[in-house]
């Protein structure tokens, strides 16, 4: 069993991950260890689903039914993605006419009215981010399901990115909510939320649920035969990283 420590100083520009030097690390699953998903305490010889003594959470090697749940949320999100983009998210009624805006027509309005910076912000948050999330999560779920060893580090980083940007697609829901609350000048100008905003909110919530149910540990799981012989060594060979900057 090989255990290593690696310490990097908290300074910009000293990112010291050297993939060539990284040893063949073992996962907790291979060592009969459980790292508690809630409090981070490490337990040896615990049964699956046992209760963590520190935080009373359940000890699990992997999130329960991770891939099945992720697929379910992803498929639902893909279905809702269509009405979210086709139905109007905002209905503007003025004295003269009634105008219905979809996500895209809102972006085009910003672009043509001269505020191209905002057009870019809304285009990224409302169009690119949900699409990117759906495609990335499908890619991650398929490759994790096949236990692929392709580009593991890049896939782990992709998952981190998806986690970080997912929330920003709520932007349009908030814009519509605020406008609907604010522009209520009776008989003169009125903005109401359209059905599309409910579908759009559903896409954001469903993709967030999908990325929360996906277990990034699955990216690193080997086929069972690979890990079996490595556990023989009872005494950990500790490798101390000497080139750390401290």
């Amino acid at each position, binding site marked *: 069993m090989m255990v290593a420590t690696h310490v990097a100083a908290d300074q910009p520009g000293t990112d*010291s991950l050297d993939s060539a030097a990284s*040893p063949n690390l073992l996962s907790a699953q291979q060592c009969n260890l459980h790292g508690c998903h809630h409090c981070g305490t490490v337990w040896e010889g615990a049964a699956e689903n046992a209760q963590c003594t520190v935080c009373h959470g359940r000890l699990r090697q992997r999130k329960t039914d991770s891939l099945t749940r992720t697929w379910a949320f992803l498929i639902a999100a893909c279905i809702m993605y269509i009405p979210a983009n086709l139905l109007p998210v905002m209905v503007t009624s003025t004295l003269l006419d009634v105008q219905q805006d979809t996500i895209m027509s809102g972006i085009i309005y910003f672009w043509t009215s001269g505020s191209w910076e905002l057009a870019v912000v809304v285009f990224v948050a409302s169009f690119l981010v949900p699409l990117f999330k759906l495609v990335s999560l499908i890619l991650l779920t398929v490759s994790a399901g096949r236990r692929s060893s392709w580009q593991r580090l890049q896939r782990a980083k992709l998952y981190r990115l998806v986690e970080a940007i997912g929330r920003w697609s709520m932007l349009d829901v908030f814009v519509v909510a605020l406008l609907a609350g604010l522009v209520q000048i009776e008989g003169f100008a009125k903005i*109401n939320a359209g059905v599309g905003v409910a579908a759009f909110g559903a896409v954001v919530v469903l993709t967030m649920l999908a990325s929360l149910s996906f277990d990034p540990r699955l990216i*690193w799981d080997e086929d069972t035969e690979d890990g079996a012989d490595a556990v023989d060594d009872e005494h950990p060979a500790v490798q101390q990283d000497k080139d750390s900057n401290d």
Partner: protein
Amino acid sequence: MHERPDLIVCEECDAVHRKPLLGRAEIARCLRCDAELERHNGSRHERLLPLTVASLIMFVIANSFPIVEIELQGLSSQTTLLGAVLALNAEGMSLVALLVLATTILFPLVQLLILFYLLLPSTRAMPRLGTKVLLRLMHAVRPWGMVEVFLLGVLVALVKLSHIADVLPGMALWAFAALTILLTAVVSFNPRYLWRLLVIAPAASASQDQESLP
């Protein structure tokens, strides 16, 4: 089943590492996936309670004053965040209203109140009543608080309106900006660290006290 305090397991790739001793301002990263394993926090936890109190004050201001007021041909209209939620609800968009209510008001408030309750200084060594349940609840609502996204949404809405009406930013807008900055500092605390601070450390010191009794 016994604890291994000398080991640390990467949250993202499950790799086992020997727990490192960290010096000031050092971060340990996973050798395999580069995720953060542990961070030397120093005295940062002393700042957490003041930050939480400041956030709660800003939260109250941000939600009790109008965010923005518009003027159109002599007619004016204003709204608070709660007003916008109620307007959505009145239009029959109750699910969307609930989503906005939960992500901008409910979840951030729950997070702040739990932190405030747990961090208040106490004379007893043992953890406060309900600490474990509350910490787990806080962990669960953490991804769903979206005050910073709402702030960007307000700015987008303001620019959109500025084409058709006079827009006067209200006091709550500034409070939301301050709240966003404060919350970023509060939320950047790894929940694992809170477990250690609030549950593991008090339990260890309590058992030490018992041992030292004659």
